[in-house]
């Protein structure tokens, strides 16, 4: 059976979908003004940490 998730609004968005957007989307201002935090290398490191952490959390459930 094909499964189609309903549009959200009444429920929290999935963290993984949110991180796709807030870490890889949105405007990045470059230049002298910011703390230069939104750099790609940093985000990459963070995502790696995320994948590792969440994978560990979900490991048991993956065997369903």
């Amino acid at each position, binding site marked *: 059976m094909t499964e*189609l998730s309903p549009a959200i609004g009444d429920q929290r968005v999935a963290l993984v979908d949110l*991180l*796709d957007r807030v870490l890889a989307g949105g*405007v990045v*201002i470059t230049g002298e003004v910011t703390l230069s*935090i939104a750099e790609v290398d940093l985000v990459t490191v*963070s995502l790696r*940490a995320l994948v590792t952490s969440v994978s560990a959390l979900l490991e048991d459930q993956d065997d369903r």
Partner: protein
Amino acid sequence: MTADGRCVWLYAVTGDGAPAPAGALAGVGAGPVRPLRAAGLAALVGDVDQREFGEAALRRNLEDLGWLEQTARAHHAVIEAAGTRGPVVPLRLATVYRSDAGVLTMLRDYAADFRAALSRLAGCREWGVKAFAAVPDPGPDPGPDPGPAGPPDDREDPASRPGTAYLRRRRAQLTSRTSARQEATAGAQAVHAELSRLSVSARLYPPQAPGLAGQAAPMVLNAAYLVADEQAGEFAAAVTDLAGRHRSVRLGLTGPWPAYSFVGGSDAGGSDTAGERR
């Protein structure tokens, strides 16, 4: 950074005409959200503590999944609330300024780009569509063959021997799994092509790792679509229709989202060449 150890978190840029956010809305670091206005634009900002959001602390905290989730959700909540009142250009998570003055200078410097982006996004929302390979239901494990249950078969066909029959069924399962993956990839391409036609712009994200998306099945499409509001119903109907026509994939629809995926990758507003950044 200001002398009192505060710095300024930037959420989004909106038109100056948009009403100020409700005072009750707590943002990142639980601080109130306030607008900074310049050049016909409003930057939504909040004060955050340098000890938690200064450069060194940010680098450390972004590696902490719990902190990252809390911060991402707070950032998103402010942008989503602002998005209900008009077009917004979201800023990348963790855009932090030393002072209000820096934000105001940035607004003036990039005013034309922000205005172009706001105009392009007006009346549009972002929708997410993910497709997972529909792994065929393997059914009960064939297990050791109990042997013919019906009338005994006189023929000594080797294929009817229990062990051989098991291996044959097992191979058929594996073959069907591989071809299911190929069919799913083709299905995802067809889905993406059709949804792209119904949208203003489309952007592909890398597939999420199995397990991360709460699905053991491999993800074969992770896409965002910028859809005009008057087309949103048609878009959602198309997803349902595609889900029915492409049984090789299971589709999931999320949204509407603020247009995170369609504001370019750099320098205020960016272009509309979605998916072609870097």
